[in-house]
């Protein structure tokens, strides 16, 4: 057992750079195919990068582009959304998602936000969760140091430490709440994109009544799963049951 664990650990250490190396190689080839407008081949190699265990927004973004060129708008939006999940502040990804959404048939209006709400939302989405967590660590460290130094400072200097610490506490709470919301979303909220030309949302799994028809590229929120059926909903609250096979999970 001990030998087995040791071997596995060694393999992991050796394999990681090998996989990364393969990933870089395939990425290079995929980009070359894309430049030659061989989008089918490019997509195949981007898939190889992903299958090698690489989870990177650039790969997803490029794969989305390849699918867009292949006129597979549903797949394109799916991979753009996957890229955005990893790098929410990337302007290229946001631009391509906006552009791709112009080409889908269903126009689901985005929620209208006031100035303040829009500003908060922009701040919330500007950083990736990973970056935000590192920022939080740095802020907490600074707060800990300020507190420690402030304990031994003279009374006048300590007052300044209190002001600064209070400000930091507010920033920590805001960044922490934002990160907490992102973690909640990551754990609890799942989205999917329609990959077929049209999808009929039914009143129940295997139901006969069609509640609405959605088209390729439309993004749903997944509410529930029952065997091979998903209860999905649109931002305007309309919901229905759709077969799992016609959707791509983000």
């Amino acid at each position, binding site marked *: 057992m001990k030998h087995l664990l040791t071997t596995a650990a060694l393999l992991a250490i050796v394999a990681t750079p090998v996989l990364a190396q393969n990933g870089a190689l395939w990425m290079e080839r995929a980009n070359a195919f894309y430049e030659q407008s061989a989008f089918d081949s490019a997509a195949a190699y981007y898939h190889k990068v992903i299958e090698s*265990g690489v989870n990177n927004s*650039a790969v997803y973004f490029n794969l989305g582009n390849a699918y867009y060129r292949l006129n597979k708008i549903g797949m394109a939006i799916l991979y753009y959304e996957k890229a955005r999940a990893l790098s929410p502040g990337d302007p290229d990804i946001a631009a391509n998602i906006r552009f791709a959404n112009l080409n889908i048939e269903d126009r689901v209006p985005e929620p209208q936000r006031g100035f303040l709400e829009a500003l908060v939302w922009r701040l919330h989405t500007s950083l990736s969760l990973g970056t935000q967590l590192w920022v939080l660590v740095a802020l*907490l*460290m600074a707060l*800990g140091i300020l*507190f420690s130094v402030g304990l031994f400072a003279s009374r006048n200097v300590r007052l300044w430490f209190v002001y600064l610490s209070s400000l930091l506490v507010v920033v920590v709470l805001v960044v922490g709440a934002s990160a907490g919301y992102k973690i909640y979303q*990551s754990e609890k909220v799942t989205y999917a994109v329609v990959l077929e030309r049209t999808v009929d949302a039914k009143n129940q799994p295997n139901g006969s009544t069609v509640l609405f028809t959605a088209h390729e590229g439309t993004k749903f929120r997944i509410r529930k799963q029952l065997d091979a059926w998903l209860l999905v909903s649109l931002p305007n609250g309309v919901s229905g049951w759709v077969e799992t096979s016609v959707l791509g999970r983000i």
Partner: protein
Amino acid sequence: MTGIMHTISPAAFFAALLCWATAALAGVDVTATADRTRVALGEQVVVTLKVVSDKALPNVPAPALPPDESYTVVRTSRNQSQSSSVQIVNGKMTQTVEITYFTYYQLAPQKAGTFTFPALQLVVDGQAYATQPFDIVVTKEPVENPEVKVRILLSKAQPYAGEQVVLTLQVAKKAQSPAQLTEQGFAECIDRIEKSFGKDFSVSRLFTQFPKGIAERIDGEFYHVFKLNWAVFPLNAGAVSVPPVSMEYIVNMRVQRRNVDPFFGDFFGGGVQQVAKSAVSNGIALKVRQLPPPPADFSGAVGKFGLAASADPRTIPAGEAVTLKLALSGNTRPGSLNDPRMPRMEEFEVFPPEKQTGVDTTAGGIVSRKTYKYLVIPRREGNLPIPPVTWTYFDPAVQAYKTLSTDSIRLEVTKGKTSPKSAARYLTQADIREVGRDIRYIKTTTEVGNQPQKPYLNPLFFILYPLPFLTALFSFLYRLQATRQKDIVVSLRRRALGHAFREVQQLRKHASAMSGTDFLSRIAVVIEHYISNKFAFPATGRTLEELRQELSTKGVDAQVVSELVSFVEGLDRYRFGGIALDDKGKTDALTRTSDFIAKLEKAYRKESRR
């Protein structure tokens, strides 16, 4: 007769006979009658107990009805009337007077079937009387009411969900009938109808005031007919039954007033007794049909609709506004008229519309209208078409979905005064800004590191997050400990003098019993303790030179330090030189010790003040 004689005992027969004979002799007649003996469940029946006498009777009783599950007594009321007649036969005038005492029992039957109204027994003028019992039949079905007929009618028995149906309440009152329809009766009936439709329907009144009667001939007789209409929209598919509703009205029953004038009494007299009655309508059954599977662009509206579009002006310079007007109307509720979806108009800047909603209410139903005024600005010159606008609804008449489409409108757009740059300020919609562009190019990097899907599960965070808290906790504990230590030093310093004097006092008590060496050692200890406590450094075990340096650094006067060192040297000489010390010498040593301690205290205070 023989049968009756068999069933009734002889004693009872003779008692009844006696009762009748006595009553006949006394000139009193007692009867009980109902206004009708066949009623529908929900209607009411009025039983009248009549006591007729040729003279005024004191205390005519109103017997209470025995409790019965078949009916409830809604109300009991009383009245009386008097009539007189004059007869002249062969020149001889005779006058007869008749006084009638009424008691009305207003009954509400509680279940269908036949119940017997009991014989009422009462004692009038010292004599016992009894009325005849009789049966009243209560039916579940409405009983034809000759005075007032209530009907509920629907324009369609099998509508589709969302389709408008007109409901009519028809109340017919027989002409010259004493029945009187009241506003309260109508209001309560309207309320019952609206409540009976429940949450599965949307019901809107098609009237604003109570109706006026129209004369109509029904079954060969004249009636005044009152009609009220509602627009009813079934919201869900399925079978629904609406139960019958009742309507109350009153009947004016004429009773004669006590009148002494034998000739004009009937012309001028007579009071009116108002008796409440009710009529029950028919029930109705509806089968609401479900719509067939809708197309993707179904607006949700069911009925008959129209859509028209117009633009003004048709010729315009680029960059200036045209008003595109859409008019949508149909027989549904305003809320069901969903906005038509505008087609993509890449050649135009389209601003959100100004909406106007109107409703026409007639006895035939509701017609809703919506008007949309879009401000449309052509981006360039040319012959630009505004594409057709479509809107899909369900038409119950043909049982199919229909799509309305406006005609394409062509605009003649001339060269505008504004430059293309200034026209760009109208570009406010996000989806229009992107038109004509392409997706952004791929990321050419080949450095594809792994970005974790769930970065919060990184073990490093579990180590790093507690660190600031631990640092803060450690600092706090350290600070707490330092404060406590400081408190001990201060406490010892404050009590150093008193402690030293107490020790000197103790030594003074036991000096004679101690050997010289022990005595001097204890004096050295007292001085060391005092210095340690007062100056917060361990004086024990230090050489005199170290002691001198330490006290000098603490700021003690050099003279005092030198004297202290000389004194301690003297003590050491006595201690280690084997010189005997008598009691006087001990007392002197203690006195000098006290003096030195006092001097050190003074030097410390002087220094601390500085």
